[in-house]
Every structure is written in structure tokens, then in C-alpha cells.
């Protein structure tokens, strides 16, 4: 397919969008990016994702692909000859990567949303403990998946790297807001090192928003939550 036929609908702060952008970057695929409005969804978005009306949506010619993890697999399978693979080749390794990616979204997303709403110190402490527990689980997963290499995907960044890695901007912003250390090298040494390698990669640097920007967004959302609670 000719270049210029790929479009991506997204939101700059969305970890789901950013993981897709990182893989597109790594694969060297050009695309037209459309920044959506959180409140006023575009006609293009409503047309191409009538079910969930959410980003990311990858539009490839006349095809629309929704759901970040589905999109990552589509990119992997449609451009299998270009750039490093997204998922491993072996069926068992693929199943493990899929399992942990689903686990990441299943556990981290609700915790992230809770950080925006938490009012009391107890609530905040519980969330921090929750994030620690998830990251400790992933420390173990990293050791198994990487088998001594740099990334979950081996030598290059892959499916599970970008799924978890896309949360790093939010995790680091939350560290600043809460004062708690989440990427604690004493508790999760391998994962902390992985995080540093991940953030240094080109395809990540070009995509992941700065921690300052994400912190500002998070603070704005927290304030918004607070004022809507007080209004009720």
C-alpha cells in the first residue's frame, strides 16, 4: 500500500494511542495524525469507531482498526517484513506476551484512574501499594520474557514493552504528584533498568509526552474531578 494512506486518530496523553505510535515509529511507517478532542469527538472518529467512540483508531485506506492491542497485532501482521517483529514468533511466547499485556491494562488502568479521584491519604496509599504490587509482578514477568535481553520482546521493543511502557509517563507524573517512588530500583531492579532503556529508545523519545506535560494534565484532571464532586 502506498505511503500516506495511514491515518491515526488519537489523544496525545493516551497510553493506548502512544503505544501504537511507538510501533509505527519503530516500523518506519508514515501516517497522518489527527488529534482528537476529548469532549467533542470528530465525525471521523464516530464513523470509524461507532462501537466505543474511542482512540486510537488506525485508518488504513478504507479499513478502520480499533483497540490498541488489536491495532498492534494488525501492524505486526500487515507489515511483517518491515522492521523488527512486534510479537514473538513462538506460539507460547506470543501467549505469554498477550497475557501480560492484558494484565497491564487490566490492573494499571483502574489504578491510574483512581489516582485522579483519590481524596484521602488512605485511598492514595492504597493506590500506591496497588501499583507496587503490579510492578513487582511484572518484575518477575520481565525476567522470564526477556531471558537476559534488553526488552520483554528480546533485543528490540515489542508488544509488551510498548503496552507497559506507554504507562511510564503517567507513572512518573504520579511520582511527582504523590511524592511516592513507584519505579523503585530497590524493589524492582530489572524493571527499573528496563524502564530506563525503554525511555532512551528513539521510537519512544519521539512519541512519549514529557513528564511535565503529563503532570500538568493529571493535575488538571484531579482539579476537575474535585470541583465536580463539590458541585454535587
Amino acid at each position: 500500500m502506498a505511503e500516506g494512506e495511514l491515518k491515526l486518530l488519537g489523544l496525545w496523553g493516551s497510553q493506548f494511542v502512544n503505544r501504537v505510535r511507538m510501533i509505527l515509529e519503530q516500523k518506519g511507517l508514515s501516517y497522518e495524525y489527527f488529534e482528537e478532542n476529548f469532549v467533542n469527538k470528530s465525525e471521523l472518529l464516530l464513523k470509524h469507531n461507532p462501537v466505543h467512540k474511542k482512540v486510537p483508531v488506525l485508518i488504513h485506506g478504507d479499513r478502520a482498526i480499533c483497540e490498541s492491542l488489536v491495532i498492534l497485532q494488525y501492524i505486526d501482521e500487515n507489515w511483517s517484513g518491515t522492521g523488527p517483529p512486534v510479537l514473538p514468533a513462538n506460539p507460547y511466547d506470543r501467549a505469554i506476551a498477550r497475557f501480560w499485556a492484558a494484565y497491564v491494562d487490566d490492573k494499571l488502568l483502574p489504578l491510574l484512574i483512581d489516582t485522579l479521584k483519590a481524596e484521602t491519604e488512605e485511598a492514595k496509599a492504597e493506590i500506591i501499594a496497588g501499583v507496587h504490587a503490579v510492578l513487582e509482578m511484572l518484575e518477575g514477568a520481565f525476567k522470564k520474557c526477556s531471558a537476559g535481553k534488553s526488552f520483554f520482546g528480546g533485543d528490540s521493543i515489542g508488544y509488551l514493552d510498548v503496552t507497559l511502557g506507554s504507562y511510564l509517563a503517567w507513572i512518573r507524573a504520579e511520582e511527582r504528584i504523590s511524592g511516592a517512588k513507584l519505579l523503585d530500583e530497590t524493589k524492582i531492579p530489572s524493571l527499573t533498568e528496563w524502564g530506563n532503556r525503554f525511555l532512551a529508545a528513539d521510537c519512544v523519545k519521539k512519541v512519549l509526552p514529557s513528564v511535565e506535560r503529563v503532570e500538568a494534565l493529571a493535575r488538571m484532571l484531579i482539579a476537575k474531578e474535585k470541583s465536580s464532586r463539590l458541585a454535587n
Partner: protein
Amino acid sequence: MEEAKGEEVTLFGFWSSPFVHRVIWALNIKKIKYKYVEEDLCDKSALLLEHNPVYKKVPVLVYNGIAIADSLIIVEFIEETWKENSIMPQDPYEKAVARFWATAAGDGLWQFFITEGKEREEALTSVINNFELLEKELIGKNFFGGDRIGYLDISVGWISYGVPIFEEITEFKIITEQKFPLLHAWMEAFSNSEFVKDTLPPREKLSERYRNVWEAIMQKKN
């Protein structure tokens, strides 16, 4: 039956779980011989907890000593490991569509089942919108997979018995022949297929199970 020398496939399941049924259907289509272990969900076996320490749930597939959890992940693993009798489409876009609907098709159905009033109305709107789109996926086909049952049929197959049971308990019909002719026909074709027919527990037993679950939830709310 396909089973290479020294290979062993075990499925840990629970009789009424739609997630377990997905794996059974995939194993049947692929003609894979397996050992089935029925779990007591109130008293999970040590083996299950060892094989799925993260979620402690069924289904879990154990193949040559290694464990895979999560029904859709297991189905893709089965497809990739045993090459004969393919269930996934070949085209990457068709795969993407199937993977999307595998999880989206059920959106709203559980909420419809366990809520009332305005909440139920909202859930129903979502369900009907999804079913209208799913109906379009069946145009010109007997199954979502085309002539044969495929990954999407397996993934949403629980609708073929689950929705009629929800309809019975809530006394509200969603999938009528008039409103969703293709989906209605698909439900029948799927249930009667050789790979599905003898896999399900008796309808009355399933109905009773769903009713008990529903009553327990509704009681808790009131």
C-alpha cells in the same frame, strides 16, 4: 485425533463457564485430544492455583507441562500450535475485525442482565447497536468465519445459549428473527454444528445456574 508422540493437553474448566466453552470448541474443531479436569470454583485445586497464580481462574490449558490462561489467548495459542483445520482468517484486517468483535460483542449484555430501569435501558441500547453491526458481519455467510466456524464464532458462541437464557430470565426478547434474521439463523446453525452440539450441559441445568446467579445478584442489590 491429532496428538503427537509425548504431547499432553489438559483443560481445567468449569461446566457452565462460557470462557471454558470457547476452548472446548477450538479443541474440537482442531480435533485435538485432551484431558478435561472439572474444577470446583468454591474449592480450587492446588494444580489450578499453580498453573494460574495470577488470576486463579478457568480455563487454563496445560500443554506439555506449560500453562496458558485466558480463553481468547488460549484459542489463539491452539490455532498457532496446531496448523491443521485453521480457525483464524488469513487476512490481517479480517483477523483484526474478528479480534475486535471477540471482546466487543458481549459489551452491555451482562449489564442488561443484572440492572434495572434506566441503567438497563442504556445497556440495551448499546447491545442493540452492537448486534446491528454484528448482523452486517454475517451478510452472505453462514458463520462469522464464512462457510465454517472460525475464531469469531467460537469467541461469541456463548451468545447462542447465553442470550436466550438472559431473555428468559428478564422476560425481554432481544434477538428476534424479524429484527436480527442473520444472527438468529447463526445462533441455530452454531448450536447445531457438530463441534458444538454435544459440548454443552443440558439447557435446563444452564438456565438454573444463570437464574441462581441472577437472583443472588439482585438480592444483594435490594
